[in-house]
């Protein structure tokens, strides 16, 4: 058997991940852009991590872009309100489910690993429609 020239003392196979509950990270923002989380309003800024249930809100001059841990990418336009109501992803198996609710405004989506993992694993709800995303790039626009 091979002897490994290593400094040992590593007890766990999986190193502790600092942020298990983080589902996405904000990449860019401009104008009025905020995250609503359990009654709190956080100013959106690059590097801020998102959690399941967060609502992304932009004002009349606002924009925001983010990338999820499954590589799904979002861009919100002005006057938008988008909630990530469900998000579950297993990094090892690269499978999961996701439900995004677009209440107002515009959202560009490039789907990631979740949409590939199972049919309609990624869903987007608008006020009048439920969409199943089958691996693609699209824009959802909800008029007031």
């Amino acid at each position, binding site marked *: 058997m091979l002897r490994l020239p*290593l400094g040992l003392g*590593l007890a766990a196979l999986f*190193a502790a991940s600092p942020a298990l509950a983080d589902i996405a990270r904000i990449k860019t923002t401009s104008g009025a852009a905020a995250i609503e989380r359990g009654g709190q309003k956080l100013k959106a800024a690059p590097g801020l991590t998102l959690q399941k249930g967060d609502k992304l809100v932009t004002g009349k001059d606002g924009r925001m872009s983010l990338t999820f841990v499954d590589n799904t990418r979002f861009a919100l336009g002005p006057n938008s309100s988008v909630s990530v109501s469900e998000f579950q992803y297993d990094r090892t198996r690269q499978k999961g489910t996701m439900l995004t609710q677009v209440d107002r405004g515009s959202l560009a989506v*490039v789907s990631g690993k979740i949409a590939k993992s199972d049919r309609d694993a990624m869903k987007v709800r608008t006020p009048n429609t439920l969409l*199943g995303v089958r691996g693609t*790039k699209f824009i959802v626009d909800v008029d007031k």
Partner: protein
Amino acid sequence: MLLPDDGGGQGSVAVLEAGGQPADAVIAAGNSRTKLGDATPATKPLGGKGLRKEEAALLTSLPPPAKSFTLYFQQGTTTLVPDSVNVLAALRQEIAARSGPEVEVTGHTDTVGSQEDNDRLSVSRAEEVMNWLAGQGFDRSVMSAVGRGEREPKLATADNVDSAANRRVEVLVR
């Protein structure tokens, strides 16, 4: 509005419910626009006018796709092979160029040695890379390192096979 994928393929979007009722329609035409809300949505091509100004601005503001790097190691060690040293510089540049970056480091081994030793070695390789990045000034809170041992070889081999392709660390920058 449905667009072609960046890779050149075409995905689709299914309408599962419309106006509160179950629906069963699929929008599959690239560069098309669909008004939602009806059980059988009408899809129209974008046509000569193309994207609206606001749609183009929205697409431009999408984050760049995740980018993957692979670093290779010498047998049984956490020492990079010489060719991979240059990849470190490219990796550093990619992270520095991104707004709000996030880095996932995954270590792997070949099948030489026991599974337990390889689990440890793969974690050590991943941590070696993460520590180097931390030394370059990147915040540890945006990085994570895991090891997969010999479980996910790039090239499938029998046990106890020396494989340069499998002794690697994959780094995903998003």
